[in-house]
């Protein structure tokens, strides 16, 4: 089984977020980047397929050279080879177009992506990619088993689980549940040294004009402090609601 794991390179969730160029560009100065957390669960599940069912794992990222450390980490964790599509990941549709091209050329049986990336939270790439290729698609997976050409996929639904059966080739959007936090792997020194020798292929993007343009980013307004009023001072509460908060 040939697996393609789509990896995005996102700011660590503890990073301070700022924008430049008139609030149209993300300021990456001093920001630490990590493998998108959903993708890490997916990659670990792919490693189980590799170890238990002899699958091969290719990792792919659409991004410029600054994302290579993230691919190298995936190789150190155990992926066999990596592909970087050398372009800015402008929007979801653009990325899906690029991934579809990689998939067409590589002939993968199973394409595993995180259900969304933690930077722009678009949540569109896996579905769009499947649609471009006319492959089966299941989103928000928390479990997957493959036997021959058949896949049994578990999804999180409101208040329960949904179990689907489908066929390869298949694209999934995955998340925690595929594996748990304790299963996530820390690259060991042997893995890091082996990753040096594993191929990381850089391919040029297919020509395609992004269909959306970012015009502005806005940060959420800071949470205001809460005031605690004694239960016996109802008048003060009414006064504050009326004159300060102006809600009554």
């Amino acid at each position, binding site marked *: 089984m040939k697996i393609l794991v789509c990896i995005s390179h996102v700011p660590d969730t503890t990073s301070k977020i700022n924008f430049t160029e008139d609030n149209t560009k993300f300021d990456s100065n001093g920001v630490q980047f990590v493998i998108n957390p959903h993708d890490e669960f997916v990659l670990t599940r792919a490693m189980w397929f590799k170890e238990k069912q002899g699958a091969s794992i290719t990792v792919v990222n659409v991004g410029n050279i600054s994302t290579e450390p993230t691919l190298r980490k995936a190789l150190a964790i155990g992926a066999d080879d990596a592909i970087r599509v050398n372009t800015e990941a402008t929007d979801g549709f653009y990325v899906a177009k690029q991934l579809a091209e990689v998939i067409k050329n590589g002939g993968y049986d199973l394409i595993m992506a995180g259900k969304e990336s933690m930077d722009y939270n678009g949540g569109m790439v896996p579905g769009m990619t499947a649609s471009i290729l006319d492959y089966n698609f299941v989103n928000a997976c928390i479990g997957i088993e493959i036997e021959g050409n058949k896949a049994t996929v578990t999804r999180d639904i409101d208040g329960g689980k949904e179990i689907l059966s489908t066929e390869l080739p298949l694209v999934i959007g995955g998340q925690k549940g595929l594996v748990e936090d304790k299963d996530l792997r820390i690259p060991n*020194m042997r893995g890091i040294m082996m990753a040096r020798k594993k191929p990381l292929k850089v391919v040029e993007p297919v020509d395609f004009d992004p269909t959306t343009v970012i015009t502005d980013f806005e940060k959420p307004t800071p949470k205001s402090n809460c005031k605690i009023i004694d239960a016996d001072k109802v008048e003060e509460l009414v006064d504050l609601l009326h004159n300060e908060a102006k809600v009554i």
Partner: protein
Amino acid sequence: MAQDLYQAPDYYHLDDLLTDEHKLIRDAAREWIKREVTPIIEDVAQKAEFPKQIIDGLAKIGAFGSFIPEEYGGSGLDHISYGIIMQEIERGDSGVRSTASVQSSLVMYPIWKFGSEEQKQKYLPKLATGELMGCFGLTEPNHGSNPGGMETKYKDMGDHYLLNGAKLWISNSPFADIAVVWAKNEKGRVHGLIVERGMKGFSTPETHHKWSLRTSATGELIFDNVKIPKENLLPGKSGLGAPLMCLDSARYGIAWGAIGAAMDCYDAALRYAKERTQFGKPIAAFQLQQKKLTEMITEITKAQFLTWRLGVLRDEGRATSAQISMAKRNNVEMALNIARESRQILGAMGITGDYSIMRHMMNLESVITYEGTHDIHLLITGMDITGIPAFV
């Protein structure tokens, strides 16, 4: 210990000076410490136990001989990689870092540099995986800062050597499988010998009741007419210069490690100061606390640069012993001061095991003494710049 929320301070984007591989190694060590060490370390420190269960993990993150060539089971990495691994480990605990320093710089290093090919093949791969653990015996009851006066000696008995004497304050001794021991021959020349646990007349009693480095086992090495096979002598180098070369490697790692302890204390103090409210404000809003925090990050940043530069020099083969002394001395004192100041920022909470600060502070009292005391490093720099030794 409370949840480990550590975020490493990097005020001047020093990360930009590291390679992608350095960062990969560093982040792996950092994650491993967070996952495997901080959850258990306070408990084992309180019980004064060496956490044997983490030996395998230490080996996997490259804590044992990262600079030893791959043919001997090491990772063949540069010295900056070694430094950043030590930094991450000491961020967790100086005692654990001590175990890794001893194994890498004081046991694997001399075998690699001064050992015979057979000795390298026999010991290094097993030391790299932690299957064998080692210790280093230089200090004696009557000879600490002045190891040249050592009394431990061996006699050539024709087909073997006969070793007599005692070493004190030896990290890892209570559980080590092998000891690299420095002793004088009949002519008074210092040589290194590999002593194996189980040899008749060799014992390793543990030193108890330490208030410092409680996660690292410390003990004695006692040699009572121990027969040492001749092939256990390190043939490559003799004289006090041989153990001093090992100390250079270890002190270099300590210079990096101490910054890790300082970063952990600063990070905890900064977070606490922003959350703890007194007089209606977070204590971080008071100038006195800001002064402490500002001076801490300034000192950490200076030490990070000093040490990174030392790493570059060491990788180029140009770092002198005196330069290493300066960094060890500066960084350990810096870390100890930061531990004390951070402890005060946490008020009473600072003395509890819910935070790592008091443990770091107590650990650093050993770190400022071992591998050359604070005073001795000053004398080394003093001699280097004036040309006049002031030791005696």
